[in-house]
Each structure stands twice: as structure tokens, then as C-alpha cells.
């Protein structure tokens, strides 16, 4: 089964869970005065769950047929068949790095977290010229911090939590 059908299967299952929540759990919380309303908070989700399940099944069962000759895949297009040739390791490391950044942003402060993120990100991608990368990362971090804090007036804690 192709990936798009697997996704359709997951989507149908998701719609069932969503529909279950809409049909069977939401209305119990409804205050009595709202029950006289023709439209409930669960009405729209119910419609969406049913529509979603139907459309998901159409994709899953392949009722709508694709036609026309398949285009010749170009080397720059993203193609599942080439998955093994892709740099999956780098991608996963970068994703992990983003999660780490999200978790470290508050405790470590903007300046440290961002500099580390930028340097580590380019290291993952294979950059080894640290004498260029580290100053660039620090400069960019400082500039963005100034822009956001000074010009836009949005507070970003610059330093780690123990420095205030």
C-alpha cells in the first residue's frame, strides 16, 4: 500500500476518534439553556468528522482515479523512492536540535540558546569553519535580539535564568 493510502487510513481513524469525541463526549458538558439552541458547539465537528471519514475513504479505496501519464521525476523533486539516498540522519538531528532549542530557549536565555542552535545546526550540516561560523552566529543573534527587543519591543530574555 502506498504512503498516501496509509495516510488516508490514519486520517479515517483520526476522524473516527474526532467524531467519537464530538458525538459522545461533548454534549454531556452542555448547559441546559444551550441545549435549546439549534446549533451546538459539537454540531460543526460532527459534520466535519462525517465528511472527513467519507473523503478519507475515497482516497483510501482509490475511487477517484488519477489519470494522465506520470511526469518524469526530476532529480531535485522530492521523491519517496529515493528516500534511502537522502540525508535522513541530518534531518533527524536538526529536528532534535529544534526540540532542544524550544526546551532551552527560556532557561538558557535567547543569546546562548540561539548561538548554540545556529553553530550546532551548521555543524550537523557539515560546516567545519568554526572561526567563521561562531562569529557569524553571535553577530546574527545579537542583531536579531536587538531588532526584536529594541525595535519591535517584544521581550526576549537574553541571559540564562540565573542572571535575571
Amino acid at each position, binding site marked *: 500500500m*502506498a*504512503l*498516501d493510502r496509509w*495516510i*488516508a487510513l490514519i*486520517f479515517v481513524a483520526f*476522524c473516527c476518534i*474526532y467524531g467519537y469525541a464530538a458525538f459522545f463526549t*461533548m454534549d454531556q458538558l452542555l448547559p441546559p439553556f*444551550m441545549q435549546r439552541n*439549534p*446549533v*451546538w*458547539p*459539537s454540531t*460543526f*465537528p460532527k459534520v*466535519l*468528522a462525517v465528511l*472527513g471519514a467519507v*473523503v*478519507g475513504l*475515497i*482516497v483510501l479505496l482509490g*475511487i*477517484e*482515479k*488519477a*489519470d*494522465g501519464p506520470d511526469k518524469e521525476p526530476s*532529480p*531535485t523533486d*522530492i521523491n519517496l523512492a*529515493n528516500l534511502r539516498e*537522502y*540525508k*535522513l540522519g*541530518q*534531518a533527524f538531528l*536538526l*529536528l532534535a536540535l*529544534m526540540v532542544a*532549542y*524550544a*526546551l532551552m*530557549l*527560556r532557561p538558557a536565555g535567547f543569546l546562548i540558546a*540561539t548561538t548554540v*542552535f545556529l553553530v550546532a*545546526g*551548521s555543524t550537523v*550540516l*557539515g*560546516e567545519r569553519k568554526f572561526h567563521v561560523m561562531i562569529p*557569524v552566529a553571535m553577530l546574527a543573534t545579537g542583531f*536579531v535580539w536587538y531588532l*526584536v527587543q529594541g525595535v*519591535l*519591543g*517584544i521581550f526576549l530574555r537574553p541571559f540564562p535564568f540565573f542572571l535575571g
Partner: protein
Amino acid sequence: MLEGILIGLQAAFSIQNLLMVIAGCLIGTFIGMLPGLGPMSIIAIMIPVAITLGDPAAALILLAGVYYGAIFGGSTSSILLNAPGVAGTVATSFDGYPMARKGQAGKALTIAAVASFAGGTIGAILLMIFAPALSSVALLFHSAEYFALMVVGLSAIAAFAGTGQVAKALMMTILGLILATVGEGALFNMPRFTMGLMDLQSGISFITLAMAMFALPEAMFLVLNPLRGASGGSGGKIENLRFSREEGRKMVPVIGRQSVQGFFIGVLPGAGATIASFLGYAVERNLAKGAEQEEFGNGSVKGLAAPETANNAACTGSFVPLLTLGIPGSGTTAILLGALIALNVTPGPRLMVDTPEIFWAVIISMFIGNLVLLILNLPLIPYIAKILAIPRNYLIPFILFFTLMGAYIGQNNATELLILVGLGVMATILRFADYPLAPLLIGFILGTMLEDNFARSMQLYRGLGFILERPMTLGLLVLAAFLVLLPSYRARRARKRAQGVADGD
């Protein structure tokens, strides 16, 4: 009207207001270029500045300039990075980005600038003519029609996704609508599908979703397949800014059609620049014939000019309901409405009568703003395009960082970043499976409005009766069903014909 225009000219050409236009366009372009910072967030950030000005005309002129600049800056990042920070420029990346990857980034940016200028200017002329008249047309629309109109918009977007893709696009639209139900709806005032998480109480942020759907998968693909980044730009040198006379001739009818169509779509509340640009793109693709149609999605001149013209015309059009009815047609004009109320001006039918200088100064400043964008942006294009010359090892961490920043600034919440990464992984997998992501985002944006209008008509008519009682609603809903079913009907007929089977009867 002539008297009004004269008053407007006088107000708009004061030194202060001229400076406001230029400053607004500049700030808007530079911030709008950063992927993820859309006009909504920029305008929201600029409101304190505008309010301290004290002069409502100057404030509105400044904010309108920021709005235009941001939309233009958004198209720049769509073309160069395939990272639209604004939903309205998503369609720009369909043909703009392939063009940039072919080494024609300079030409793509010039076409975008010219198309934006034409769309905005023609839109402003139409605004001058139609603003008074159109208020009566828009008054005919009730929530039932708005609901039906949004259904038509969503169906049209799915229907134009291409043969064999309609069901997939519809699936994505519904997923977007489902995501929009997360959080506390304005109408019911009770949290839904938050799974008990405080962070989901206010729903998923549009900026986060837009980043996750477009910027993040693109960055991931750049990582996965180094070939993809390698062909981008001709070593960062943008040489050929000009487009040929033949390409110019191709663009003229597109600009003509799309500025009018975009303007009228922009007038309708809820539709706005996003739908205008997608619909403009789809209409032009359907109108194009043979080889030209094949070119759409691979760097077509028409495919780039259409959404660029339409979204700028629609931006202008979205001022019509704001200025004449006091109803914001989009999130951005809603923020503008908030700023006006803070300045003690109530937009509405009385605005033209009571304070004509504000009304007309804003319209005149639109002409000046478009001119500033064209004069400002064309010479800056080679410098803007330098962004392509940055080596991949530096560029990718920075794209990821700006993506994270955009989501963080909007919400000031680190959990938002985790949501962003999660949605981004989901979007990357969906892209691998060839699912279109734009319908998801549009569904998400329109979801809240769709439900509000649906619920309001249900309440007014005590049930689904509004569909039968309002012929315009019924007509629009039938049109929506027709749009969804048409592609598979046509494909089936074509298949039968190819197999040599008679068509029946």
C-alpha cells in the same frame, strides 16, 4: 467625489503623510521578507507607533503602507526561499520558486513587483469608483451567504488542485477545518478538543501552522536532498532583471483580469488576498491552453503574475468593507479597525461624510504606496536576492531559526515551538505522499469564520432551513458541489473516450 479627491490629495501630499507612506512600505517590505512574519503580526506590532502619531489619517496611511510592504516582502521570500510568510503569497511560490531555481530569480522578482504595482493601482482606481456603490451589494449578503461563499471558496481550491488530486485536497481542507476547531470558539465560549492542555486553549496559531506547512518542510527537503538547494539562483547573481517584450505581452491580459477579479474577491469579507491569489492562479491555469498550461507550476510567467496581481488588488479591495461598512473582511483589516477605534474614528457609512479627509487621504496614499513599492523594490532586487548566495550550511540553520522565531514571537510561548516541530514533521510526511498543503492552511484560516456564519444562520433560521429559504445560498452551495464533482466527471468522460466506449444514451 471630485471635491473629496482634492481634499484627499491635499492631505496625502503633506510632508508627514508622504513620509508615513515611505516609512510604512519600507518597514513592511523588510519585515515581511522574513518568512513567517506576515502583515498581521507586523501591523499588530506597528499599532502602538501609529497610535502615538495621534493623527488618524497618518496612522491609517502608515499601517496601510506596512500592509502593502509586507505583502510584497512576503512574495520576495516566497520566490527566493519558497517560504511564504503570508497565506496570500503561497500561490506566488508555485511559479515564482521554480523560476528562481532556474536561475531567473531577478526576472521573477521584477514580474512580481510589476504585477503587484498594477494590481494595487488598478485596485485603488476601482476602490475610488466602487467604494460608495459596493456597500449596497455587500449589504445583501447575510451570514448564510457568507457561509455558502466560503464553502464555494474551499471547494474551488480543492477542485483546482488537479485531476486525481481532488479527494486528497478535500481531505486536507477538512483536516484544516478540524484543526481550526481546536481551542475556544468565540461563539460558544467553551474549550473544544484542547485535551486539557492550557496551551491549546487559544487554538493553534495561524503563523505556527503556516510555518509548519511551508517553511519547515522546505528546509527539511533542502537538508534531505542537497541537489535541491544547489540549483537555486545563479550563484546569487541576479543579472537579468528584465522580462522580454513577449513575456510582457503575456502578462497584460492576466494583470487586467486578475486586478478586477482580485479586487472584487477582496471586497467580500472572508475571502481576501489568499482566496483571490489561489483563485486567480487557478483561473489563469484553466484559461491557458496547451503548452502554456503545462508550464504552470514550473515557472510560468502567467502563473506568477496572476496571484501577485490578485493579492494586491484584493488587499485594496478589502478596504472597501472596512471603510464603507466598518466590517473588517480579513484579519489584517480587523487589526486596522482596532487601531482606528483606538484613535476615536469609527469606520462605517458615516466616515465618508463626517471625515472625508481620512477616507480620501487613505485612497490617494494607496497610489503613492504602490509607486513607492515599485521604485523602492526594483532597484533593491539585486541586493534582496543576495540571500540566495549564502552557503547552504549557513542558510538552513537560519531558515530554521527564523521559522522558530516567527512562531515564538507571535505567541511568546515555547510550547508553540514544539507544536511547530510536530506539525512540521507531519507536513513533511504529507508532502512525501503528494498531498497538497495549501488547502489545509486555507481550511484552517476560514474554519472559524465558516463555523461562525454557519452557526449564526442556523440560529436565525432555527435549523438548516436557511439553505432552502435563501436562493443565493442554495445556488452557491450547488455551485460548490458542482466544482468538486466536475474534475472527476471530466476525467471519467475522457477515460471512456480513450477506451473507445460510447458515452451512453
